């Protein structure tokens, strides 16, 4: 019995300790400008309107960017995976796409497309594209050669190799990429909104810095976290069946 109860005591104690520390840190001003958890909850209760409408803006931008970016990423990766010459030609692009800090591109997007939707959505498209593209192309490169040999031995044609062997084999990898992209789309939107938007959670949070509305800022962070977690879970739940035959769900 002790074995069962003890961990739950530790777990509950840790949660209580976390909230308790937060209270102590805010009441005694150990962390500057930190509001109490109650102040944050009050934002949701008393002024849910602005928070909701800004969240909606971020949601739409993130979703559109995610949809187009992911689709593009998968398609381009499939095209690149077709043969090793195409892959070799675009190798530097892939290397760059993998390690490029995308946030550096935000000012360029604002310069090219202007403030607001016009630059935020294209930026999120590119951000999600990079993520899905890199993970998909790695999935293609990691398809065990034995699979291809086996298909050849049974007389599969070039196209059949691709549609019957490679495509199914990379589905788990692509879904892994989609999950990362889904979790990243809203933070990317947020970053773009920090710099060039009049609506959206990024604007809401940045405005909070200027007006010292720290409870609102934390509520905004809760909002964007909820979006990211919900999107990731949505991808995981809807695609679970597609990979039920696979041994691993996330590469």
């Amino acid at each position, binding site marked *: 019995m002790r074995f069962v109860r003890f961990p739950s005591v530790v777990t509950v104690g840790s949660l209580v300790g976390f909230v308790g520390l937060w209270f102590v840190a805010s009441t005694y001003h150990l962390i500057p400008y930190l509001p109490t958890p109650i102040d944050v909850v009050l934002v949701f209760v008393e002024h849910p309107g602005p928070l909701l409408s800004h969240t909606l803006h971020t949601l739409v931008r993130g979703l559109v960017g995610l949809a187009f970016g992911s689709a593009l990423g998968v398609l381009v990766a499939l095209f690149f995976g077709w043969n090793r010459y195409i892959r070799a030609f675009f190798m530097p692009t892939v290397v760059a796409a993998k390690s490029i800090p995308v*946030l550096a591109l935000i000012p360029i997007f604002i310069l090219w497309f202007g403030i607001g939707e016009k630059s935020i959505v294209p930026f999120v498209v590119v951000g999600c594209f990079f993520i899905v593209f890199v993970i998909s192309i790695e999935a293609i490169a990691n398809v065990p050669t034995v699979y291809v040999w086996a298909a050849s031995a049974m007389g599969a044609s070039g196209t059949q190799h691709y549609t019957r062997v490679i495509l199914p084999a990379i589905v788990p990898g692509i879904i892994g990429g989609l999950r990362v992209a889904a979790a990243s789309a809203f933070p990317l939107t947020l970053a773009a909104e920090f710099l060039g938007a009049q609506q959206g959670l990024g604007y809401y949070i940045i405005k909070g810095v200027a007006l010292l509305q720290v409870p609102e800022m934390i509520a905004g962070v809760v909002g964007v976290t909820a979006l990211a977690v919900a999107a990731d879970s949505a991808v995981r739940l809807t695609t679970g069946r597609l990979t039920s035959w696979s041994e691993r769900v996330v590469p």
Partner: protein
Amino acid sequence: MLRPPGVVSWLRRRVNPLFLLGAANLVLLFLLWLGLSESGVVPRLFLPSPAEVLTRFGQVRGELAENTGLTLLRVILGFGLGCGLGLAIALLSGWSRNVQRALEPVVQILKPIPPIAIAPFTLLWFGLGLSGILFLVAWGCFFIVLVDATEAIRNVPKVYGWAASTLGATRLQTYLRVVLPATLPGILGGLRVALVIAFNQALLGEFNSASGGIGEIIIKGYRFNRVDLLFLGVLIMVVLAVVADQVLTYSFRRAVRWAN
């Protein structure tokens, strides 16, 4: 008769034709940039020509070197701090179930928070200067490495521990001499992801705080419509990030030679 120098045959042996294809891609990209900007198809206001960027580079070389150093310092220190803490906490919770049970709920609350969303708070909590951006970078790296290292520790085969015990190792010896070395190779993927996050976080911090660094160069170029400076900053960031990733991967693989 003298033998031919053999450069051609050396090249033929050494240089992979596939690698040349990759180089061709870079050359084509550069030509595309040159063509689009010099021909005026894309106005100068939106895309500076390579010559303009190069001239600007010559003019602000000293300033650039200083700011590049500043950004690199923040990235390296924050990355080291975040990854080190992440690994340390993962090792602690691997050592003791109670530590793990105590930390798990807090980690589950804080981990899903996008590191990007932390940026606006650092100004309030740390003010301008090194510590705020360090915190931002370290926060981003910490959870990635914590999750990866925890997973890697779980994946260390039990046989390793048994073998060490048979040879008379104490629990601590087993942990430090067997489990830790077996864990390290598994976190390279996490470290590489953390490195990209580190660069992004440093940039975000520099965008907001006017405390120097390439991020400030980029934002200055954007605000004052000096597109050559803007593109120069972005180019430097891309080169830095690619080189840093290669250096990390190469040196880490060397450091954990026992893995292969």
